[in-house]
């Protein structure tokens, strides 16, 4: 964990504060007023926009409610029983974790590769590539989804025409329209859309690694590959960890958008993730209570996943 540097900072920071209070006489009242000024509005907003929806979601999961009228019946844990007996649910969980795994691997490998290339290889056009790779991040996911449905279009799309052009007609298939290929087809746009942000994060990390480490490694006879494994990777581990956690959380909570735009969960539920299935139940089939139950399930899965990841990615901070 990255807390070891903290005590080092701590001492001067405290003496700085002390010096300040000695000279300027900061009363307790003043301190608390300032704290309240910072915390109360944030807390109120947090309560209204995070805690209240969270608990009302939990509350509605105990009701049989269509979501479009005032009538709702309390049915206890019936929705949860239904959840455990729903044959579609296991598929949605598997699809979600398939996307998590492929996205984490795809985005991290690509982003790391590009970040190292742009920082270490002294490419003249580096700023240009930085902008190009970041470009998808400023586009709305909805736009990306629509764009890629055109790319995947079986008759007019870039992918199938490209395959035909290089003589691989037999590889062409109705990507999003196939029960087997639809889910893997969603991975590519998700990775494409994600690389830029994490590339920038990792580049920031790499830029902070002192050049002297590389010089020392070079004198010791380490080649570029060894430098990457022994110097770069350990030193940017905090950034990698945060990136992975961020990808996992956004995928579990947000893969819904790309699924909804590109396939709507079909064909035959082959691309439904937990979020899109929640949407379908709550707003298409008018089972809002059951949708809320799925929401609770997503929350539990996200929490568990993040806790487990935190545990496995625990690593002592490396300092040279």
């Amino acid at each position, binding site marked *: 964990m990255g807390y070891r540097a903290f005590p080092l900072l701590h001492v001067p920071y405290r003496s700085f504060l002390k010096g300040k209070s000695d000279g300027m006489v900061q009363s307790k009242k003043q301190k608390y007023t300032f704290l309240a000024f910072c915390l109360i509005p944030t807390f109120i907003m947090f309560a209204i926009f995070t805690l209240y929806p969270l608990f009302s979601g939990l509350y509605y999961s105990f009701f049989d409610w269509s979501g479009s009228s005032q009538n709702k019946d309390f049915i206890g844990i019936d929705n949860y029983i239904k959840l455990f007996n729903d044959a579609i649910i296991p598929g949605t969980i598997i699809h979600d974790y398939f996307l998590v795994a492929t996205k984490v691997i795809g985005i991290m490998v690509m982003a790391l590769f590009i970040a190292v290339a742009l920082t270490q290889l002294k490419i003249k056009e580096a700023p240009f590539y930085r902008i190009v790779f970041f470009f998808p991040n400023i586009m709305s996911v909805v736009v990306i989804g629509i764009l890629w449905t055109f790319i995947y279009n079986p008759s007019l799309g870039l992918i199938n025409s490209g395959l035909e052009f290089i003589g691989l007609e037999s590889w062409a298939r109705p990507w999003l329209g196939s029960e087997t290929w*639809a889910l893997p087809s969603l991975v590519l746009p998700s990775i494409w859309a994600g690389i830029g942000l994490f590339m920038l994060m990792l580049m920031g990390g790499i830029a902070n690694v002192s050049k002297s480490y590389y010089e020392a490694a070079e004198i010791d006879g380490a080649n570029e590959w060894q430098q990457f494994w022994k110097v770069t990777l350990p030193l940017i581990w905090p950034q990698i960890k945060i990136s992975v956690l961020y990808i996992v959380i956004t995928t579990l909570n947000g893969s819904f958008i790309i699924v909804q735009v590109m396939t709507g969960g*079909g064909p035959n539920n082959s691309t439904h993730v937990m979020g899109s299935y929640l949407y379908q139940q709550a707003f298409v089939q008018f089972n809002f209570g059951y949708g809320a139950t799925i929401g609770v399930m997503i929350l539990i899965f996200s929490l568990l996943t993040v806790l487990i990841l935190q545990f496995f990615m625990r690593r002592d901070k490396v300092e040279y």
Partner: protein
Amino acid sequence: MKKIINVRTLFLFAVMLMLALVVACSSDDGGNEDSGSDKSVNTAEGGNGEISGDLEIQYFVGGYGDSWWKEVIGDFKEKYPDVNVIEHAGPNINDEMRSRWVSNDPPDVVYIDGAGSSETQMVEDGQLMNLTDWVQDIELDNGDKLVDSFIVEPGKFDGEIYSLPLVFDTWGTWYDKAWFEEEGFKVPSDFDSFMSSMQEIKKEADIEPFVTSGQHPYYFLRGMLYPAFGAAGGDELLADLITGKEGAWTSDVVLETMKKVEKMQKEGMFDEGLGALNHTQSQMNFLLHENAFIPVGFWLPNEMANDIPDGLEFGFIPSPMQDKGEPFAIVPDLRPLAIAENAENPEAAKAFVEFAFTRDYAMSFSEHTGAIMNITGVDLTKNENVPSYLTEANAMINDPEQVQIYEKPHPMSADLETPIGNALMSLMLGNMSAEEFVQEAEKAAADYRK
């Protein structure tokens, strides 16, 4: 120093005050709205039968556009100048107005159509006014009773009427008439000729002849299968399938019909990529001659009006799924007008509904939308502004030798339609057999009955 504290505290208080104001204002708004509507109810009642006050109308704007609505509402305002009509309209209006329905502050009149709306759901939730008695007294201009002048009678829930069917739409199969004439393709008249026509098109034009929206399997369900079930088993079978009666989906007639779908799949009639297409993409495919047949309702030409290539001429036939020698079957799809159970101005709402159901508006509806209003005795043939596919289809529908009309009791609940649609898609992609499909559908019906 003290002064600084004061400034800070003041600022903090200002922020808190603003927050408090925001919260207070939002609840105030609700209060105002309520009291405002109370007033309107009072004026409506206090006026002793006089129609006045606010009238809120919610209508979905989709393939039919909104020009007909503008005309009717404009005329209504002229006739009832004391009524302030508030329109809530648009393609997403059902979602936008949902919070109003949930908070028990619904609009007065609602036209139930489009994504996010479900008449069945609204009736089950007790949101619509029971119109059974009131509708008996409504008369058209020439004295005909409205209840006797519907093409298709209002849907009934336990024998009670909660909505009046305004739009008579029907799904059918579209083709490009000009293209078919030019290439000599045959317009099918039953399932066998449908297959041979598609075989010919597949060979001559080198395309997969049939397309529909795979993202919304209900296009095929309502557009092809309902007519097929109607032709094979009549109203009774349709009702059993829609209500999910035990054994209905596994019955022999259903299996035979699904075998036809399996046959279409095995012979490669379905567009290979249809699994991912949404309805606009599939319709675009059709317009571009990527495919030759598509099941859609009467709204297709209006919906795609901006994308129609030169020379394309819409042709419409009831979906040809019936056996040789049988008449075509259609299953009308009705879009109703209803009054909210908790309408704040029910008198004005009733006045509007009564006002809209006339033969004149039925005629102008066909001109504006290319579809038919659910009223008999409207002669479309002499009106040049009505598109030709509609007059032809209308004539066909009115000839019982050619076309049989079957009625479903009410729309299928999304809880049954969704799993059946999913299995259907699997069958159409060749990942499931007809036998497996009927088992899946029967299972979905069993879940639905629970």
